[in-house]
């Protein structure tokens, strides 16, 4: 525990006399953290298990004939949802995760089917689902449920956009989630310091926002998926480009570059790289995710960013309506430009 004490001493020195901390709670939390190491294998197992079990249970209800009664489905659904949220509120063990994910999933599915059977409007159902997800996010505190709630909200919004054919709202979706992602990543300190609940929710919100933004980017990435939205495609790319430029400004600060000439050069090169991506917000978005994740040393985000970048760039060039000759020239020129960047940086760091 001496390591912990020395760390706390250092914090107290930098914060001043007003710094108070709950030593017992901190010791307990560290003890717990060592006991409950959850790695990615366990998380994947619980999500898959929960999903399969939920499917099987729904199969059971189906064969039993519950789908004949809309109100029965609704009531059962709400009971299950309440149960899942209560379970997560009072128990925070990884063991319970599988069970609670299934119960939550079953409850949500039943509520949706019940409302659909009652003849409610599609949009109202989607709004109710979004509302349930928001409530779960506010009440329950566990990692998996919060993550699923964030993703559910995003899925709900997407469903609203697609079912109402208002495809240009996709740009608003990307705009909002880009800003949310940037604030989340760059404001980690604020999240952790402000509120105990926000600090707990930070991890799941971060990965949830990445997945939500990715969904929007995928919808925009494939040209033929939503052709109507491509008229105003710059509405999506511009906010992303601006965020990236702000990030470049931030990174210049980290790198400690003071010469104005270098700064101007870096900005100019960044704009040169971003201009071609105006027509491909998915590529710009992947770059943003990659840069943000690297900035805050978030490995999962970095991997997602790289994979997304490779996928979106490949897709973009595949869909491009130019001849192979034109594409090859574009690629070659971009390649040479990147190699210039590489040489520029190599020279700067090995003078």
């Amino acid at each position, binding site marked *: 525990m001496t390591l912990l004490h020395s760390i706390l001493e250092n914090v107290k020195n930098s914060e001043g006399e007003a710094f108070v901390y709950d030593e017992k709670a901190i010791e307990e939390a560290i003890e717990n953290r060592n006991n409950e190491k959850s790695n990615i294998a366990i998380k994947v197992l619980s999500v898959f298990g929960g999903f399969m079990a939920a499917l099987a249970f729904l199969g059971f209800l189906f064969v039993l004939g519950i789908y004949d009664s809309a109100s029965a489905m609704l009531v059962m659904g709400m009971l299950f949802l309440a149960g899942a949220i209560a379970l997560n509120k009072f128990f925070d063990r990884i063991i319970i995760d599988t*069970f609670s994910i299934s119960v939550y999933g079953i409850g949500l599915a039943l509520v949706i089917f019940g409302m659909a059977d009652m003849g409610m409007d599609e949009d109202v159902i989607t709004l109710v689902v979004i509302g349930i997800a928001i409530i779960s996010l506010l009440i329950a505190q566990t990692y998996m449920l919060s993550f699923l709630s964030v993703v559910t909200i995003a899925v709900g919004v997407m469903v609203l956009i697609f079912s109402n054919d208002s495809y240009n709202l996709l740009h608003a979706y990307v705009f909002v989630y880009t800003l949310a992602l940037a604030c989340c990543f760059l404001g980690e300190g604020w999240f952790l310091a402000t509120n105990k609940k926000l600090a707990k929710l930070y991890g799941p919100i971060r990965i949830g926002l990445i997945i939500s933004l990715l969904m929007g980017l995928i919808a925009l990435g494939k040209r033929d998926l939503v052709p109507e939205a491509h008229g105003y495609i710059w509405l999506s790319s511009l906010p992303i480009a601006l965020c990236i430029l702000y990030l470049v400004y931030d990174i210049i600060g980290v790198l400690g570059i003071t010469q104005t000439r270098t700064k101007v050069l870096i900005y100019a090169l960044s704009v040169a790289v971003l201009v071609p991506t105006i027509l491909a917000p998915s590529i710009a978005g992947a770059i943003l995710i990659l840069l943000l994740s690297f900035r805050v040393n978030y490995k999962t985000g970095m991997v997602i960013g790289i994979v997304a970048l490779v996928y979106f760039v490949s897709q973009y060039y595949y869909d491009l309506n130019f001849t192979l000759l034109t594409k090859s020239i574009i690629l070659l020129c971009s390649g040479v430009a990147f190699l210039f960047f590489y040489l520029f940086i190599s020279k700067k760091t090995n003078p």
Partner: protein
Amino acid sequence: MQKIGREDIQIIAKHSNWSNEGVSKALEDHVYHKAKDWHQFLKWLFLGLGISFAVAGVIFFFAYNWDDLHKFVKLGIIGFLTIACVLGALLTKTKPPIKKMLVTAASILVGVLLAVFGQVYQTGANAYELFLNWTFFIALWVVIVHFAPLWTVFVTLVNVTIVLYSEQVAHGWSGVFLFTLLFWVNTIILVVFMLVGKWRESLYLPTWFTHLLALAAITCATLGNVNGIFDAVDSSYYLLTMTTLLVYAAGIWYGLSHKSPFYLSIIAFSLIVISSAYLIRLSDDAGMFLIISLYIITTITLVIWALIKLHKKWNP
């Protein structure tokens, strides 16, 4: 300050009134990447992007002109590239990993050469023959160079050859037999590599490779068993079941003795999937679905509980 991690900062922040600025500064100092990391990252990023874009540009250029090229030029270019890669690996004075990557590139080019040959001369051969020849031609290189990514390419080729053979030539093979064969081939390769790694330290291959092999082998076993549960037409199903049980038992022993949760997780997951399939086969009425649902929840929860306990035992 000593090395503290993101989680430590999170815990302290949650249970104290640490200010926003203080937390941000702590994160900057201990968690976020510094200038040196950025330099490395940007260098590798631009190098990787530059090379892939330039190579893609060249490939697209040839694709554009492909139909107009004379057949000698087509074969000549690929042959030249292959030879250049191999000579580059042999004669230049670069670091060993780069040499090995050159040989990997050459191995892939061999396949491209065979494909172009087939296209130019319209030999009408089966796709499986292309993969078979490809596998044979690069076998010597793969063994000598002993590079994990190259071995991955090779094992993929072996699997693809077997699958294509079953589709295009051996029309009598049942699905279960195919999966049994794939399972055996992948498991044998996996065991050989593990033993070789134990016998000679220098021949050890990285964990990601053995894990990938194990994943492939277990996927084949799972698919084969599920297929066999619903559609067992010949005796190969019993062979598969017996060998699956033997291999899984060995895998669990290995996982426990070598403190590797990976093998335990995938074997457990595979067993749960197979047993669920068996339950569905028994009956598909309402009661069975409920039983399956509870069964899945219970078994996965037990597996996770066991994994956590083992983790605690191995990392006190």
